[in-house]
């Protein structure tokens, strides 16, 4: 029998025959590796997932016309939006503001892409439904109270072009209140309708007033987009909504460092736990070491064997832990953020390497102390 065969046989035999103890050790390593890979995966994914949550605060970038002469229509906006990574774009809502007359009162009306508004302003509370058909509108709560409108009411809206003759002929459009908008902010004084309805009411014009964008990106990335758009689409003046971007980076940094510290503390403590368990499992075998030594095994070969065992356990535990850890991270992601987690492929070798290192180190210390002692003493049980 060759030396290598004997080595392998001794390792496998000790793993198989001492099944229960090896199971204990393997479990410890697997738990450690699970925590390592699970928490690190979550740590890397938190900014992305949490960033998506922060989009609840609404638009973090707006487009304005660069100057009064600039072309600022849907096409220009599309060119501006093209500069932003489509994956990061949460919503785009163009707005055109006009004053319309309802019950002879001047009311501010906004024409927008209602689906875009829904995406950029998830915090809008609608009492009723989002408009789905033509001539259906959202009415801000203040305006609704002022005009005495309720969900389902139909009212007549006219638009004044400024010329009296035309105004007499202008019969306006009958519109239906699909829902009452409650935000607690200035949106409550407006009337929201789709851009096409607005065009029919107030006439076609190419010019938008403002475009709200909600982009899931860090403050630095947003600044880069801002410069990019300014350079590529000269008609657009992009502006960051500082209130949202500044606050987001403050809070997000805190959250990330929280997860980082928690991960660090948990990892250090878990790794020590794994190490002590391994040490206990190996210390138990001092007698075996003594016996081998008295049979003539060299210190080197004994250390090698034990290390081989440890490394095997570490490798298997590491692989097991990687799988379990990913499953845990996925579970957390689905339950907390209702989205899938992105897997970090680099984590697999790192997890295995760390578990092998920890187990190796944990084995090395007790084995070395056992080999240093006189075999007779060890065998006697001291």
């Amino acid at each position, binding site marked *: 029998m060759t030396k290598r065969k004997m080595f392998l046989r001794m390792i496998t035999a000790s793993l198989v025959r001492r099944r229960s103890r090896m199971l204990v050790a393997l479990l410890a390593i697997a738990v450690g590796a699970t925590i390592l890979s699970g928490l690190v995966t979550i740590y890397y994914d*938190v900014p992305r997932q*949490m960033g998506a949550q922060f989009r*609840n605060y609404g638009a973090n970038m707006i487009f304005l016309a660069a100057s009064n002469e600039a072309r600022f229509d849907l096409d220009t906006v599309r060119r501006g939006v093209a500069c932003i990574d489509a994956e990061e774009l949460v919503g785009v809502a163009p707005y055109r503001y006009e004053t319309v007359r309802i019950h002879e009162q001047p009311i501010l009306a906004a024409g927008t892409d209602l689906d875009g508004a829904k995406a950029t302003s998830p915090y809008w509370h609608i009492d009723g439904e989002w408009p789905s058909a033509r001539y259906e509108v959202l009415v801000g709560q203040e305006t609704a*109270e002022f005009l005495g409108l309720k969900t389902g009411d139909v009212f007549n809206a006219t638009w004044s072009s400024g010329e009296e003759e035309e105004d007499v002929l202008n019969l306006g459009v009958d519109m239906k209140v699909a829902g009452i908008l409650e*935000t607690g902010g200035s949106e409550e004084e407006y009337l929201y309708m789709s851009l096409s309805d607005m065009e029919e009411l107030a006439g076609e014009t190419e010019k938008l007033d403002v475009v709200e964008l909600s982009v899931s990106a860090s403050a630095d990335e947003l600044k880069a987009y801002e410069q990019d758009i300014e350079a590529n689409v000269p008609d657009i003046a992009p502006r960051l909504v500082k209130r949202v971007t500044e606050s987001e980076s403050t809070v997000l940094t805190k959250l990330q460092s929280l997860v980082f510290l*928690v991960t660090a503390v948990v990892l250090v403590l878990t790794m020590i*736990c794994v190490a*002590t368990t391994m040490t206990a499992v190996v210390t138990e075998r001092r*007698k075996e070491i003594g016996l081998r030594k008295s049979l003539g095994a060299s210190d080197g070969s004994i250390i090698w064997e034990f290390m081989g065992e440890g490394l095997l356990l570490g490798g298997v535990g590491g692989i097991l832990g990687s799988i379990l850890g990913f499953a845990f991270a996925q579970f957390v992601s689905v339950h907390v953020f209702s989205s899938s987690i992105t897997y970090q492929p680099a984590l697999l070798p790192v997890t295995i390497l760390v578990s092998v290192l920890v187990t190796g180190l944990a084995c090395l210390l007790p084995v070395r102390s056992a080999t240093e002692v006189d075999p007779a003493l060890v065998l006697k049980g001291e």
Partner: protein
Amino acid sequence: MFFRMIRGAFTRQWKKMLMIALTIALGASLATAMLGVMMDVGDKVNQELKTYGANITVVPKASSVIGNLYEVEGGESGETAYLREDELGKIKTIFWAFNIVDFSPFIDTEVTLPDGAGVKLVGTWFNHHLALPTGEELDTGVKNLRTWWSIEDGRWIDEGLDVYEPNCVMVGSVLAEREGLRVGDWLHVSAPYGENDLIVCGIFDSGDDADEQLYAPMDVVQALSDTDGYLTSIEVSALTTPDNELAERAAKDPSSLSIADYELWYCTAYVSSICYQLQEVITDSVASPVRQVADSEGAILEKTELLMVLITILSLIGSALGITNLVTASVMERSNELGLLKAIGAKDGAISALVLTEVILTGIVGAAIGYFAGLGFAQIIGHTVFGSSIAMKPLVLPVVAVLVLVVTLAGSVPAIRMLLKLRPAEVLHGR
């Protein structure tokens, strides 16, 4: 004899016992730290989310925004409703006064600059020192409510200092550029009810409408608009509990609730109940949540708490398995000793009692050390991340104690049972 054996185990095998105690201490400290942080993370993140500014606005009942539209129609003669400045202190007397972090009154008026341009002048508190009837003292104002403003030049108006130079004004960056204003310049403003010379003491960049406005201390603006003692709005920043179904029902109509529900709602820090309580103390006011801030806060708080709960559960499982493992390993290691005890006639019960007492004694020592170490870890996390200490909930101690007890028993009982099943001769032989 029993105690002697226990004492013997601790004095002669102190190294092994130390290792068990150490592992239990590690597990217990992990559990303590994670539970402590988890239970307090909601409050801490809530504090952080205050950087988004006020989540409640209070406006006079009759006015509201439509009033401004009216003014366009009816000119300056239009009746405008105001809130009363002397009622501001009452905000800190409501049931949830402790949850009100900051608030600031606002009064605004249109002023004309020398070149004829009309500008909005906002009067507010910057860092107003408030001595409350309750004896509490508090510094509050827009400096806390507008954390995203960056001062491009000059400084914030300091109300503590500016009693000697009360005519300070802060200018929005867009306006400053347009008018060519710099820090230290004098700016003459005229309003329908008076005029004044103000000195520019800071230029700020806010990234919103405020960039085209002027901000000055309350009394300056009140003098200009002849509204001494009156306000147009109040912004309140409060720590709130995320809304649930009850809160939504209550927000629509508090009187529709049953008495028990009403009390539960009134005594929970929902944004709607705080709004309701504010309306009770401020005459003729409407307090409404700023959905953009209030809703998003709720969502983020919920997610963060859930995330921390799951991470805590993982680390609890981890530390539990770690302790169980080590205890099992260390009990099995003593198969020879237990076999010998059995061979010389010890009863199963006596052996179990002996081993369990040892393990539990070690567990108690380890858990005690771990608990205090865990408190330390939690404070390290609190101070590094949030810059404030974590308030440990009293629930943490019993949870950790029960956890350690259950886990050590779970680790030792199956191992002892397994060893007792073996025949002493076999065990002693080394099988």
